[in-house]
């Protein structure tokens, strides 16, 4: 088992390191040309109000997006961090009628609070550019394009990128609202929890000597939780944040769920790496060996996500009705009732790739893989 544990830890580090500088050659928005459409909806942009329509620009084959409705908005949470830079150039091509007002809203951290709003002037297919100075540290910026009014507003080639710091000379940085747990911080005053510390849980940014300082946490580093609660992993939030380290109910995580300590798990066992970081609630580990000659092994198949539960005699069909299981092959009945859990590459729970920290590859900047792991909280049927 030590080998597997080390392997697990190395994987965690690699996954975290891959998120450093989450840009595509300096470009920080996904799908700048609105090339990705999931049916009639944008894939990389979220329609927050009204609707968005695919409309021609200079050629009908090269679309832009029209904000439809008197109050319409689209937004995208970009994975940029202050490691990438604190000066951002936001470009777009706009065709905006005089009786429509379009604003570029900047939400540092993506918590929903707009720290900067810039009016995009009326234009007829003119390229426009904004320079934005951001406060360090930060992780993630949500850009919102919001239209008010009856006039037409078509936007295209939206492209935010890291600019030279010199471009922001003389521009006051945006004043960010207090950071939530899992966001980077340089001091406790910047955290909503009042606690800026360190965590072993994965973050999509680096911390420490060469990173962004600390991470806002709700517990640990000398801050204890109340009765019936333990310091563990809070509910997953934005993919631009780290897994939040905060107080959670004791023994509340079922078999296969993410954990930072055995106290979080209903099984009382959290199979973790040697660094004590993210683990999975399990039925055995090296300190809790299986009885009757059964072996402790990975409950989910090899090649599946990073964080896997360990169970006794996985796949041996030894578990009887009502016993915990991680897969159907654990049960004598070949039936294991439970919910399928999918994970991002850093071990956090996900439903779609947009829930995962972004990666940059030949397809540009997009959400990281969200892979089905196995059954969480299963019992043999």
């Amino acid at each position: 088992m030590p080998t597997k544990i080390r392997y697990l830890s190395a994987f965690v580090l690699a996954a975290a390191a891959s998120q450093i500088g989450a840009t595509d050659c300096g470009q920080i928005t996904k799908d700048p040309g609105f090339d990705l459409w999931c049916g009639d909806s944008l894939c990389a942009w979220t329609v927050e109000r009204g609707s968005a329509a695919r409309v021609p620009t200079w050629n009908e084959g090269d679309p832009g997006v029209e904000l439809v409705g008197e109050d319409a908005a689209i937004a995208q949470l970009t994975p940029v961090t202050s490691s990438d830079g604190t000066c951002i150039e936001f470009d777009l091509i706009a065709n905006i009628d005089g009786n429509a007002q379009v604003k570029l809203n900047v939400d540092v951290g993506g918590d929903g609070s707009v720290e900067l709003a810039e009016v995009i002037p009326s234009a007829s297919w003119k390229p426009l550019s904004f320079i934005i100075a951001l406060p360090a540290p930060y992780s993630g910026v949500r850009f919102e394009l919001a239209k008010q009014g009856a006039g037409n507003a078509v936007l295209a080639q939206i492209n935010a990128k890291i600019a030279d710091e010199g471009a922001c000379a003389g521009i006051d940085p945006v004043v960010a609202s207090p950071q939530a747990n899992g966001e980077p911080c340089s001091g406790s005053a910047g955290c909503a929890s009042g606690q800026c510390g360190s965590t072993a849980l994965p973050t999509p940014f680096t911390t420490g000597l060469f990173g962004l300082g600390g991470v806002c946490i709700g517990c640990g580093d000398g801050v204890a939780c109340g009765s019936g609660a333990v310091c563990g992993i809070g509910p997953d939030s934005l993919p631009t944040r780290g897994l939040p380290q905060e107080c959670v109910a004791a023994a509340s995580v079922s078999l296969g769920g993410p954990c930072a300590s055995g106290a979080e798990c209903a099984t009382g066992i959290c199979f973790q790496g040697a660094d004590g970081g993210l683990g999975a609630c399990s039925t055995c580990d090296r300190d809790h060996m299986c009885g009757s000659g059964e072996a402790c092994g990975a409950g989910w198949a090899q090649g599946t996500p990073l964080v896997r539960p360990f169970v006794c005699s996985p796949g041996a069909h030894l578990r009887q009705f009502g016993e915990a299981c991680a897969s159907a092959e654990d049960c004598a009945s070949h039936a294991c009732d439970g919910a399928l859990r999918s994970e991002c590459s850093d071990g956090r729970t996900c439903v779609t790739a947009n829930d995962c920290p972004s990666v940059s590859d030949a397809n540009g900047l997009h959400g990281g893989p969200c892979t089905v792991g196995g059954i969480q909280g299963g019992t043999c049927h």
Partner: protein
Amino acid sequence: MTLRTPSLVAFALATAVVAVAAGPARADTPQQPVATYAIVVGSNLGGPGQVELHYAEDDARRVGTVLTELGGYAPDQIDVIVHPTPTALRARLDELQRRIAGDLAAGRQSRVFFYYSGHARATAIDLGDAELPLTELRQRLFQTSATLTVVVLDACQSGAFSRVKGAQPAADFSFNSRQHLDASGVAVLASSSGSELSQESEVLKSSYFTHHFLVGLRGAGDANGDGQVTIDEAYQYAYHQTLIATAETAVGGQHVTFEADMKGHGDVALSYPRAATKTIELPAALEGQSLVEDKRSKTVVAETYKAKGTAVRIAVAPGDYQVIVRHGQTLSRCEVTAGGVVELDRCATEEVRETATKGPGGPRFVHPLRVEATGFLGGERDDAYTQNLTTFGYGGGGTSSGLQLAALQRIDPRVWVGAQLGWTTMPGWTHETDVGGEQKLAWGVTTVSGVARGEQKLSPTGRTAIYAQLAGGLGVGRAHFTGADAGNENSHTYIGPSLEAGAGLHFEDPVHPVLGFSIGYAYGYAPVVKDLIGNTHASGGSRLAVGLSYSF
């Protein structure tokens, strides 16, 4: 006026008066002691209502040269006067009279040659705004005591044609001169009769009459081959050559006339080409219209129709010459050095390239049609359309290429008109999308244009011409867009104007003159490709054009 090419160059007629006073004239080399005097006058200046001539003064200088080389006149005996005032001319004539009187007193015979080229009216020669009455000129010329006086006047009636020498169309200059110069021993040679007019030749860069008069003196007029050209031979030669040449001009044929009253004296020799240091011999076997071109100065020294059977020697200055002989539809180009003989079997022979004649329906040309295929290459124009592509993240641009096919018809020696079909492929633009695919714009323009081209040979007999042309018509633009995602394609066709201007050089193949090669610059402008947001791309720009042509 339609001018023929050098191989069949047209001639215009000038008025000439040759007056020969009685006196000994030997068909031999000049005998001494005979005092010889020549006053050669040229004046380009026109009087009121007259245009300025181009070559009258140059003709006077050429006459002086031939007299020196072949006429037996020493350079210091020739007084070449250009654009003189009447007062100055009177002074020269007075001085002439005094010198002849002195010769007479010393027992010497004297010979006088007077030449005038310029404007004239029925009663006077025009020297700019001033004039010298003909009666006075006659009086001053024929009241001298010269043994022999030769007067050549290259002037004629003015008319409706530009740069025509002379004055009142009603008067016959030579006739009037003859009547008023009625003196014993006087002979009159007139270049025109009635109201005939005289012209200068742009090709010959001379008056037609003076050119042929001098060619005759250089030897082409030596009909009997005795090595000297008499007044009668010079007249016969000038008469025929001038009439042949001017028969097809817009002004019409002109007839050189000659009257002489020698009072028993024999032929008077005007030049002695045999005595020239250098000649070019047109051999007996040579037949056809022959043109002698000085290769260094690119000027036509002589042009004559050479009949078969008798050799002709043309006196020339030392140097290299090209003799072009046209016989039927065959053109021979012969390189010869002064002192040499044209060797026909060593001449380059080709089919006649072109000629023009006047007739019903306008000029006709040999090889009046030309088809051309031209390839071109050049940077495509950068404008709002392409700048917008850049704004939308596309990259590309660069060099356009294409092909043009043209069919041209010659309507004038220097003008071609026709139609042109062109295909231009513009450089594609591409955009790498953020989803991994590529968007492409492929586009091109097809043009259908009318073409007008001016073409001027760099030398009268050369194979290289400079051209300039304009083309205008319709352009059909095509744009094909291919998106990154399957099935995302569209095509559009647009129509708009198309303009092109160009200039360059056209070369004829020396072996097969029906084939040609051209290289030049062209600037195209065809605003035909549009996008959906109001930008129009004007296809074109600066291009290098290289073409091949075939004439038939």
